[in-house]
C-alpha cells in the first residue's frame, strides 16, 4: 500500500536535500536532478518499503535509477563492448561512493570533521592538530576516535558497507 501524502512530503523534506546533492554531483546534470529525485521518492512511495534504514534504501534506489539512465543514454547501436559497460558502471559506482563519503563527512559534527581534515587530508600530526585547533592532544585523540566511529555509523546508515 503506498504511503500517504504526509509521509511522502516528510521523506522529501528530510532526505530530499541529501538526495539532490548526491544526484547532482553524481550526474552533473542540473536539469535531471529534480526529476531523478522525484522519481526516487515516487518509487519509495509506491513500494512503501518496510525498512529501518530509509536513507540507504533511497540511496540504493537513486543509484539504480542513475545507473539505468546512464546505460540507456550510453547505449550505442553497434555491439557495445561489455568491458566498457563494466568499466563505466564501476566508475559510476566510485563517483557515487565519492559523493556519499563527502556527504557523510558533511554529516559529522564540525569539530570531528575538522580533526579528520587535519589528520587525514592535511596529514598533520596529533601535536600539530592540537596546536592548530587550540585543544590539548588528548582532546584531538578522543575527537579522532569518535569521528572515526561516527563516520563509520553514518556510512553504514547510507548503505556504504565497504
Amino acid at each position, binding site marked *: *500500500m*503506498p*504511503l*500517504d*501524502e*504526509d*509521509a*511522502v*512530503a516528510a521523506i*522529501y*523534506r528530510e532526505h*530530499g*536535500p541529501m538526495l539532490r*546533492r548526491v544526484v*547532482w*554531483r553524481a550526474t552533473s546534470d542540473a536539469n535531471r*536532478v*529534480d526529476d531523478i*529525485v*522525484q522519481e526516487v*521518492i*515516487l518509487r519509495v512511495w*509506491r513500494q*512503501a518499503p518496510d525498512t529501518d534504514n530509509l536513507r540507504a534504501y533511497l540511496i540504493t534506489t537513486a543509484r539504480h535509477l542513475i545507473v539505468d539512465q546512464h546505460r540507456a543514454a550510453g547505449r550505442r547501436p553497434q555491439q557495445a563492448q561489455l568491458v566498457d559497460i563494466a568499466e563505466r558502471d564501476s566508475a559510476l559506482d*566510485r563517483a557515487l*561512493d*565519492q559523493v556519499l*563519503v*563527502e*556527504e557523510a*563527512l*558533511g554529516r559529522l559534527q564540525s569539530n570531528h*570533521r575538522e580533526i*579528520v*581534515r*587535519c*589528520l*587525514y*587530508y592535511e*596529514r598533520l*600530526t*596529533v*601535536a*600539530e592538530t592540537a596546536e592548530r585547533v587550540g585543544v590539548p592532544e*588528548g582532546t*584531538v*585523540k*578522543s*575527537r*579522532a*576516535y*569518535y*569521528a*572515526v*566511529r561516527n*563516520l*563509520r555509523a553514518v*556510512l553504514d546508515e547510507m548503505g*556504504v558497507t*565497504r
Partner: protein
Amino acid sequence: MTTGSDERHVMLGAYVLGGLSDEEHSAFSEHLRTCGRCQAELGQVSGLPRLLDLAAPEGGPFLTSAVGGDAAPRERATKEENVVRLLDEVGRRRRHRRRWLSAVAAAVAAVLFAGGAWLGPQLFSSSPPAPPTTHVAAAPVAGSGVRVDLALVTRGWGTQIDIDCEDMPTQGELALWVVDRSGRAVTAASWHATPGGYSRVTGATALPPSQIRSLEVRTDTGQVLASART
C-alpha cells in the same frame, strides 16, 4: 604520566586517520596485539581510509566550505515548490490507480447485474459458475471518511477477502466482519491501525461468496466504519 586503558583505546582514531607520533604508534600496535576490543573496532573502521581517499582532494565541499553543498542555494528556493510538485504527482498516480480499481469494480458490478437478471430466476435449477473474484467498495458509514475496497476471491475452502483501505483511523485495532445469510457475524480478519491510515490485508472465511450477505469494517469498540452488501 600513566596511560589509562581508556586512553589507549582512544588512540584507535588517530591510528586509523594517521598523526600518531612514532612512540604512540608502536605503543598502540603493541596494545592492539592483546586487546580484543580494539581489534574488533579496528576491523569495523579499517576500510575508512580507502573510502576517505575517494573524496575529492581536501575531502570535498563539506571540508572546504563552511556551509552547505554546491546545490544548496537553488535548493532552498525550490524546496517547497518541489514538495508541491511531488505531491501533485503522487495524487495523479493515486487517482490513476483508483480509477482503475473503480473501473474494475464497475465492470464486475455490471457483469453481476446482467448475469443476475438473466440467471436470477434459474438460480435454483442450475447454479451458474461462481465468479472467481468480486470487487466490492464498502460504503463508509455517516461520519467516517474511510475508503475500503474489498475483493472476494472464491476458493475451494471458502472465500479469500483482500482488503484495501485508506483514510482509516490511525490507532487501535480494526477488524473485518462477515455476516452470513442467517445474520450470523464472524471475524474474517483483524489488524492494527497504521500511522498512515493505509492497510492492505487479506482475510479468510469458510463461507462461500454466495453465503456472504454483508461485510463490515469495525473498530475494536465495535463501531462500524464501512459496510458493504454483496
